[in-house]
């Protein structure tokens, strides 16, 4: 097991390095941020001074070397726009995005698995068919459109829920969280639902497909021949078999959830990482873009690692095979 973990860590470090090169090259090749930040009336001297101050007059590889050195000590440069450490900016917004993502994932799982089980066990019933039709709608509708509709219905027409911002927050261990306050929760409902919808549909469909397939397996028939109740068969035999692919998907999709938060945060003006990156792209605030990508890469690597570990815990065949090596 330990060998496995170490090997994965080394692979991940390699991935990180490669990504940083790609990201750096790509991002620093776009346009010239000086043009955006500077006063159009400024003269050459001004431009030159700013360029030098931002270190943009150095050759690209030198800029990358500086970047690497600084990155190793945790400094990813200062934001061109806010002139504070880019990494600080991102980390400040991280809790908001993570909170949203976790909430969305919880909704998707807690609703998705039961609904999917039902649809899988009774595929021809009205409930089963409507769940499936609903799930198709769920992952067809583009996230941003659903967000707009949610705002239109719940915020504008019905006036039940607020349509933007984060509302009241409370600090816990230095991290600002919003679900601990009533106002914060109210602000989180719509964005979380919006973000969750796609994953919810995905989980419903996965669970349903897995259940349908599992129910046709011999071990289900054998369990019935043993005289086991349907509840036991579904609750233990079927569920344990379908949990493995579902957990894998949940783990991998969590990263995607964080990325898709970009859209939700834009629609609902939720002050998370996603909104920051869009704004930064528009003004070419390179350090922030690079910092965002680096942090995201690290996050995904960690998530992938955790998923692999959990996967081996869940499926005894994998675990025993790995131990045998």
């Amino acid at each position, binding site marked *: 097991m330990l060998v496995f973990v170490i090997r994965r860590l080394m692979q991940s470090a390699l*991935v990180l390095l*490669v990504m940083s090169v790609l*990201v750096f090259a*790509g*991002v620093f*090749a*776009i346009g010239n941020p000086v043009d955006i930040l500077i006063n159009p009336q400024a003269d050459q001297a001004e431009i030159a001074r700013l360029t030098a101050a931002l270190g943009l007059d150095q050759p690209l590889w030198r800029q990358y070397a500086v970047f690497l050195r600084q990155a190793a000590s945790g400094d990813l440069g200062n934001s061109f726009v806010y002139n504070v450490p880019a990494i600080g900016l991102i980390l400040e917004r991280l809790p908001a995005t993570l909170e949203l993502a976790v909430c969305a994932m919880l909704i998707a799982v807690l609703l998705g698995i039961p609904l999917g089980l039902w649809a899988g066990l009774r595929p021809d019933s009205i409930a089963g068919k409507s769940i*499936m*039709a609903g799930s*198709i*709608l769920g*992952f*067809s*509708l*583009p*996230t*941003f*459109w659903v967000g*707009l*509709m949610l*705002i*239109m219905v719940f915020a*504008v027409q019905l006036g039940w829920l607020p*349509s933007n911002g984060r509302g009241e927050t409370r600090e816990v261990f230095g991290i600002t969280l919003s679900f601990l306050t009533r106002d914060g929760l109210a602000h989180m409902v719509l964005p979380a639902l919006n973000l969750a919808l796609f994953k919810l549909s995905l989980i419903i469909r996965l669970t349903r497909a897995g259940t*349908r*397939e599992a129910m*046709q397996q*011999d071990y289900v*028939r054998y369990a019935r021949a043993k005289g086991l109740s349907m509840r036991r068969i579904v609750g233990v035999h079927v569920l344990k078999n379908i949990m493995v692919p579902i957990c894998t998907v949940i783990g*991998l999709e969590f*990263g*995607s959830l*964080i*990325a*898709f938060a*970009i*859209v939700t945060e*834009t*629609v609902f003006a939720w002050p998370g990482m996603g909104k920051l*990156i*869009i704004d930064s*792209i*528009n003004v070419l605030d390179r350090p922030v*873009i690079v910092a965002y*990508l680096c942090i*995201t*890469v690290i996050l*995904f690597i960690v998530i*992938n690692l955790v998923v692999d570990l959990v996967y081996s815990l869940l499926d005894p065949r994998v675990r025993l095979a790995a131990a045998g090596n």
Partner: protein
Amino acid sequence: MTQPQTPQTEETPARRIATDFAASHLAVAGLATLLLILLLALLAPLISPQNPYDLAQLDVLDSRLAPGAQSGDGKMTYWLGTDDQGRDMLSGIFYGLRISMLVGISTTLAALAIGLAAGLTAAYFGGRTDSIIMRVVDMQLSFPTILVALILLALLGQGTGKIILALVVVQWAYYARTVRGIALVERRKEYIEAAVCLALSPLRIVFRHLLPNCLPPLIVIATVQVAAAIALEATLSFLGLGLPITEPSLGLLIANGFSYLLSGKYWISFFPGLALLLAIVSINLVADRLRDVLNPRLQK
């Protein structure tokens, strides 16, 4: 299985697929809607009351009119209203659908071709080639599509060709991995071994033997990916990247109408949204049914 041996019948596979498909009314409705949309998209220049890309035809005084209003010079009726630039929504939607379909289909075809080539190569040659290709694929797949597309478009700028390129880069990896997986299984089967023993050229083996067996799941995936490409393009346009303002796709139209939602001028976002929805949902309904029909493990 508690099923008796099903006796041989005279049905060809194609017939069976068609009959099974038609058994779901929802899927048939989806297919009908999809064909209608394709028709509208194809004929957009002919049936639109107005060419929304031609700035000369737009009259800014006619902007933000409610559905059913008449134009200032009385020559046309804006059946679905106008947006903030005086663009007829109906025409905008037809052209928008056209772009959506164009982007979706060409992206999928290109990504499919590239992914197919990569996956088959990896599976057939194995070893080092396989490792390298799959490493690239895995690396790319571990990143969410939206992030990759976002960065690419930020780099490339705006334009239909560029957005197709970005989407192809996003999508090819998924095909490559799926194809490789299937091809690996097929490759171990005896009929391939037999073909190799007959000294058939690799190209022939791949195309005439390996490929046809990979097709059914690929058809399903490709159909779903068309919808995914359309949705992604709309999302990117909504975020301000992708297509230029002068050639609005449905996503951009929706984005334009965002700010007017709160003041009651819902039609600027709502109708393009509806069109987008119908396109995506109909494709997914068809793909869904195809998946159930083509999946041998669910055969009753």
